[in-house]
């Protein structure tokens, strides 16, 4: 390194016109060396660029591989389901296998009931827990936050078993209430985290302004924190509801009949060998997919609209 830099100095001297002698030899050596480095850099740069190109192409190949399942799934669901869905399909009750003219009205009503019960339970409780996390620092809040994060990763089937042993075993019958409870427990941790994240976006100065006006904590929470967090709260809860509507496993242990929820109806009909049943499953899947997609889009739209209004 130091030899090189002394050569560089010599080179500068040589170029300034110092003439022959040891300085000139050194300058020539430096020139040779610089040329050598340029040459090897040029060669290795070609190789490095080539490696980069190849790796980038490999990464870009992953893109269609990852996208293909989504596209294929949505396409086949629409292609197979569109033939099954009509007004009669939506308003008629299911018929036994082999009898035509059946619909999925009981499943749509049942799904609506279940998600209604779950929402009535999870939305207010989720807000209360989020307010607790918002107002309080320290170990209790941190551990609740941590367990909410861990709990949102607990498999839905285990929540189903929990609801089974709490409600079904105790009261000796399967019910929409038990199913709603299971879905509510499932949505709760997602809602808590979304609500709290939304509350954290409210400026601290606004909170301080509310307090400085002499308002109670509850009034500040209601009129400043909740109002400011509303777009995020609505969006987060809608996404949680979209996830709750699509759950199947908890209903397996809590629902009295597979015709009482769209997801369970799909599970039941898909595993039957009759083409008519499979057709019903595709139709129900399309209805469910449209519903879930609408909820996801609505979540973004609501957040966007409320955000704009707030400004």
């Amino acid at each position, binding site marked *: 390194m130091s030899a090189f830099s002394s050569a560089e100095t010599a080179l500068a001297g040589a170029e300034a016109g110092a003439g022959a002698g040891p300085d000139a030899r050194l300058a020539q050596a430096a020139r040779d060396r610089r040329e050598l480095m340029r040459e090897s850099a040029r060669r290795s740069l070609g190789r490095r660029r080539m490696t980069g190109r190849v790796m980038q192409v490999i990464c870009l190949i992953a893109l269609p591989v990852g996208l293909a399942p989504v596209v294929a799934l949505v396409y086949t669901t629409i292609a197979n389901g569109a033939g099954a869905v009509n007004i009669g399909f939506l308003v008629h009750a299911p018929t036994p296998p082999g009898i035509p003219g059946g619909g999925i009205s009981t499943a749509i009503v049942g799904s609506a009931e279940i998600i209604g019960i779950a929402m009535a339970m999870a939305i207010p409780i989720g807000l209360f827990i989020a307010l607790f996390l918002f107002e309080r620092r320290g170990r209790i809040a941190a551990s609740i936050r941590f367990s909410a994060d861990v709990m949102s990763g607990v498999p839905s089937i285990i929540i189903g078993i929990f609801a089974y042993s709490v409600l079904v075993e105790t009261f000796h019958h399967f019910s929409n209430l038990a199913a709603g409870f299971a879905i509510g427990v499932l949505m*709760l941790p997602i809602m808590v985290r979304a609500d709290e994240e939304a509350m954290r976006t409210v400026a*601290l100065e606004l909170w301080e302004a509310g307090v400085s006006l002499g308002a109670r904590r509850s009034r500040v929470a209601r009129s400043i924190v909740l109002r400011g967090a509303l777009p995020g709260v609505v969006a987060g809860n809608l996404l949680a509801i979209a996830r709750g509507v699509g759950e199947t496993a908890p209903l397996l242990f809590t629902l009295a009949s597979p015709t009482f929820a769209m997801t369970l109806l799909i599970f039941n009909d898909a595993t039957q060998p009759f083409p008519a049943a499979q057709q019903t499953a595709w139709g129900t899947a399309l209805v469910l997919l449209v519903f879930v997609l609408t909820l996801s889009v609505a979540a973004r739209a609501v957040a966007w609209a409320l955000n704009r209004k707030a400004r």
Partner: protein
Amino acid sequence: MTDPVDPSALLTTDPSRRPGEGSGRGGPPGGPAPSWRKDRILPSSPFYAIVRWGGAGLFAALLIGLVISIVSGSSQAFSHSGMGFLWSGTWNPAGGDYAAGTLLVGTVLTTFVAMVIVVPVGLGVSVSLTELAPKWLAGPLGTVIEFLAAVPSIVVGLWALLVLSPVFAAHVEPFLEGLPLLGHLFHGPAYGPSILLASVVLAIMTLPTVVTLSRSALGGVPLADREAAMALGATHWEVIRRTVLPGARAGIAAAITLAVGRALGESIAVAMVIGNRPAVPHSLLAPGATLGSAIVNQFAESTPGLGTSSVIALAGVLLLLTILVNVFGQVLVRGRDARRAVRVGGVPA
């Protein structure tokens, strides 16, 4: 609406408390610990406190209730088989054998194969979306992948059972059997429903988890790091390979861990495509069973008493497994956030 504040209370400060000594009470939410006592300066209502503490209490009760119900429900199975329930024997209710061993093998195997598929694809997609694709393309494509997360698992299962499974039986599985070196992984008749198909379904379902979390990790690598690498003469790929990927390592690890947690616990879609044969599979094309798929299939048929208790014990094993993985994943996520906070704060590493 609001209560009048006693003015003398506003003037009272408690000198025994200093900033930074917060016990977690009072003060601006998320702000520094207060130097004053909340109950003196902030008028509060008992109703609001009851609501907040009630919510927190309810959540704790739910968690404890969940664990207690699973533990007490599975006690009969564990007292019947002992800890051997975890590894010995096979699941054969007709013969009175209840054990999770083969199901554990199936669960770990499907999850592992799913990760072998999803990690390279997910990383490739994330790198493409954050580093390679133009913005106008990356945004919509990212939304499409995230849309996959909103698709209900039952719809994925339906599609896999009625569309993917025949394709696998007719084309993919015979092709894999013909591969020169990997052929012995894929032998036996090509049914369609198999460990391999279940793994592919899990890979599809965990892809949005991997992509969403890795994208945010890759996007979080500071611009200055990239510029430093470029200034040293690194090519575009070398910047990605030597700077961006190492910088996002913790976030990518968290993404993979959380995807593993999701794959372990997925039950309904797996139950539809795995073939449900509780035995140690001899090949990836053989039907198998996982903890989740066994719970789905055995619960309705289980005999009251020991049978039901054994199914709940399976749920207990699964709960333990997923909690371990998720706690690890959350610790990784939090560790990454903490480290980033230090970096933003300007503290040299």
